[in-house]
């Protein structure tokens, strides 16, 4: 018997493609964000509000992933910005190759901000690097305060948590402080904003976070 050390990442092929994407984003000075949440937490709504807030001259593009339907792309295309739907046909997450394909036909020189809406799923998307500068987890107040503890991976890997649907707080028993404490237990330095896509409360905090990221110099090195 012989022990043969490999020490190789299981998703090394995805990581390789993601590294290539990250390099292309850096070359073209693109900020790419990967939005992840449970189904229905408000990713598309947040993107709708975000696109509405932009001047039409902004160089923004969106890739949105779903298992089925073009619904989200249709909603987002009303903004007038380039939007492409990626239908995974059953796969519960986007992977780097899907992003590579989704970008085909777009001139990256004409994009400054690429927003990716992942498939609604709090688990699987966290394993797949898409070449993004940061993951953003959207978490809504109807989901229970313990989600960060139950699904630690995505909270650990996200730079920002958007606590959405805060307009519903009067109607649901949800302890915001506890949810924040749970999130910080998993990821001490995570940034947190509270939003409502309904009343627009807190959207300014999200937009300022976004503006700050856009000003940051782009790192070419992969964040693992």
């Amino acid at each position, binding site marked *: 018997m*012989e022990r043969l050390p*490999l*020490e190789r990442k299981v998703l090394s092929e995805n990581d390789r493609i993601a590294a290539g994407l990250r390099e292309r984003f850096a070359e073209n000075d693109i900020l790419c964000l990967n939005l992840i949440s449970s189904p229905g937490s408000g990713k598309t709504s947040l993107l709708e509000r975000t696109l509405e807030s932009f001047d039409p001259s902004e160089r923004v593009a969106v890739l949105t992933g779903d298992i089925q339907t073009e619904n989200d792309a249709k909603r987002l295309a009303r903004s007038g910005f380039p939007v492409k739907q990626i239908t995974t046909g059953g796969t519960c997450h986007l992977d780097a190759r899907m992003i590579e394909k989704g970008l085909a036909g777009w001139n990256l020189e004409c994009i400054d901000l690429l927003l990716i809406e992942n498939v609604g799923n709090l*688990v699987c998307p966290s394993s797949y690097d898409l070449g993004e500068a940061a993951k953003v987890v959207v978490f809504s107040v109807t989901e229970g305060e313990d989600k960060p*503890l139950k699904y630690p991976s*995505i909270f650990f890997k996200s730079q920002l948590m958007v606590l959405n649907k805060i307009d519903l707080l009067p109607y649901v028993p949800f302890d915001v402080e506890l949810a924040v404490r749970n999130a910080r237990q998993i990821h001490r330095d995570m940034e947190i904003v509270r939003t409502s896509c309904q009343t627009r409360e807190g959207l300014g905090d999200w937009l300022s976070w976004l503006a700050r990221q856009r000003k940051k110099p782009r790192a070419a090195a992969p964040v693992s």
Partner: protein
Amino acid sequence: MHEMGIASSVLDAVRAEARRFPNGHVYKVVLRIGALAGVDPDAVSFCFGALVLGSGLEPLALEIEYRSRQHVCAACGRSFAAANEDSACPECGSADAVFSGGDELEIAYLEVEDGAPAARA
């Protein structure tokens, strides 16, 4: 459920390595999964079991080395396995700790029988 994809990637990696041992047999692959990897070890085992049948690689066992979340205490330097609910240092009680592991999703090693490796292509 992305564990099928994970299991299939593991099998691909074993298949590639197995070519280096034309006269031997890879009989075990050891996968390291961290608590923060977002992967369910039982589901990976289940999918792996299904995929390995008829793969031409059997008998091939999968062993999973599960790693809990690892912290190093910023106050006293002690390394410890941190629970999600409570990650205070067991030595000094400090809550100030630096993450040091537990997000792995790696193939650690293979066990090969009778394996003089062929020269790498």
